[in-house]
């Protein structure tokens, strides 16, 4: 019967300790969170951007000297040095040139720094050879990078970049530059022709089989050997990614366009298709970021990529980093897949309320025992008071004058004990007063002529 209040009070004590600990934890979390500031909000790419690679130190291709190249241009207006990759629609270029004197020389990609400056001197050498010809215009094409005079041309649309890097087709930049140099002005140049077609089922099956097997397909002539797994994961989050690499496609004929077909074949998969240095993304959220990523990538690295044959591994690695940084930038409405879950940012708004709840409960638990003013009084105290009072009434008829003072003092103490009980004073005090009263009554009981009126006798009589 006694264990229940004890268990309850110990439970209340434990709850109070738990609440206090929770409140302290709230404060600690809150204070710790104050120092975090604003830099938690944005994720950032793993590594700083790096350009595909520097020009080669040692010459990998042969280039004639500047005077030799000038002599070649003297003989014929269009010179393709051995290894040159640039292709153009000769008919359209001829139309743009008209009857002007325009010389075109195309060099292979991957020139060293010295070879580049030698190649840039060709213009000057040709002019010195033909000193009277003021209308002479020389276009130099290094890899697929078109320049002439003081100009260098860069594509401005994705179609042009696709033609330049996917097919080595530089028709549009050449015509734009020719128009600029021979004075017909800034009239808009017709973009490159769309030379894509649907792949045949057989062509598609070859690629799809490899992709199902290993997630990667490298066509003969393509240079992709490895896909960096961490860069891939960072760029596309949890979405599985597949990579198909093809060599540069021939210009002037219709070539299969694998991207959309593969995207239909593998839904919910990030599909990256490479044609030479041209990279396309097909798959989930393509409309959200693929064009932005590609435009940023080729605007930034286009002129570097145009000059050299870079392995597709390098090109792809930098592209994946570009995709990751575009997605980290949070330009789009969908959640970033790689922002780590931060429980603190979720709990922070609720933290004051949790703290307030702990405080209120603590206050309630503390106030409850304090508000309960009088502790439960053992009934024995009141019983003893009643017993002694009854004895006093019984013995009052027997007293003589000699016992009056003692009897009166007993009554005084009994009355004081009654007042103490009514006033909620502690039991110990009440018992002390009753002890005094019992002492006086004992004196009276001994003095009266009848036995059995002492408090002890009275008790015995009741028990019997």
């Amino acid at each position, binding site marked *: 019967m006694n264990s229940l209040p004890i268990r309850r009070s110990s439970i209340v004590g434990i709850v109070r300790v738990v609440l206090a600990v929770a*409140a302290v934890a709230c404060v600690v979390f*809150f204070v710790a969170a104050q120092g975090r500031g604003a830099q938690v909000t944005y994720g950032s790419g793993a590594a700083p951007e790096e350009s595909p690679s520097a020009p080669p130190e040692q010459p990998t291709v042969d280039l004639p000297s500047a005077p030799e190249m000038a002599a070649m241009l003297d003989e014929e207006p269009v010179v393709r040095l051995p290894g040159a990759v640039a292709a153009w629609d000769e008919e359209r270029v001829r139309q743009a040139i008209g009857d002007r004197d325009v010389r075109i020389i195309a060099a292979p990609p991957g020139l060293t720094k010295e070879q580049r400056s030698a190649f840039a001197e060709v213009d000057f050498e040709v002019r010195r050879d033909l000193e009277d010809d003021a209308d002479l215009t020389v276009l130099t094409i290094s890899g697929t990078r078109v320049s002439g005079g003081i100009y260098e041309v860069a594509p401005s649309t994705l179609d042009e970049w696709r033609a330049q890097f996917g097919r080595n087709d530089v028709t549009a930049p050449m015509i734009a530059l020719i128009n600029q140099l021979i004075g017909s002005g800034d009239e808009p140049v017709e973009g490159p022709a769309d030379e894509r077609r649907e792949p045949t089922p057989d062509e598609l099956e070859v690629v799809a089989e490899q992709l199902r097997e290993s997630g990667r397909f490298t066509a003969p002539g393509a240079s992709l050997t490895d896909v960096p797994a961490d860069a891939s994961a960072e760029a596309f989050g949890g979405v599985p990614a597949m990579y198909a690499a093809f060599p540069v496609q021939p210009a002037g004929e219709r070539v299969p366009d694998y991207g959309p077909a593969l995207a239909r074949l593998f839904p919910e998969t990030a599909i990256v298709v490479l044609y030479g240095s041209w990279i396309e993304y097909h798959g989930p959220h393509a409309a959200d970021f693929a064009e932005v990523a590609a435009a940023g990538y080729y605007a930034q690295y286009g002129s570097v990529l145009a000059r050299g044959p870079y392995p597709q591994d390098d090109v792809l690695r930098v592209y994946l980093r570009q995709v990751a940084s575009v997605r980290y930038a949070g330009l789009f409405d969908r959640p970033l897949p790689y922002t780590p879950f931060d429980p603190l940012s979720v709990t922070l*708004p609720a933290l*004051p*309320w949790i*703290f*307030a709840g*702990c*405080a*209120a409960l*603590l*206050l309630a638990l*503390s*106030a409850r025992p*304090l508000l309960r003013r009088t502790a439960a009084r053992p009934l024995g105290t009141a019983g003893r008071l009643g017993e002694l009072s009854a004895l006093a009434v019984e013995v009052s008829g027997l007293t003589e004058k000699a016992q*009056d*003072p*003692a009897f*009166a*003092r007993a009554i*005084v*103490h009994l009355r*004081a004990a009654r*007042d*103490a009980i009514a*006033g909620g*004073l*502690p039991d110990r*005090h009440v018992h*002390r*007063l009753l002890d*005094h009263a019992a002492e006086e009554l004992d004196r009276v009981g001994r003095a009266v002529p009848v036995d059995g009126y002492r408090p002890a006798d009275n008790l015995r009589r009741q028990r019997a």
Partner: protein
Amino acid sequence: MSWLIWAVAGGAILVAGFGVAAVPKLRARATDREVAWSTARTAIESATVSRDACAHRSEAAEAALARAGAIVAGGGGARAARSATKHARRADRLWRAAAGE
């Protein structure tokens, strides 16, 4: 807004802590004083009974009871009440001795 919640809740915790520490102590002190006064009043009444029952006069007892009565009239804390109790008990003893009990 948030800081207001922090401040109010912190104040509540402070109040709870101080309350838990201080209220029982204050209550015990108040009880102690009441007990002491109760004892003092009882002792004085008891002494008054003894005086009325005593046929002889006792100067010392009269003086002691008068001092106890003065202390009660002046009021005060637990120490004053205990002092009054002491004087009243002494007076009670003296009168009982004089009465020959």
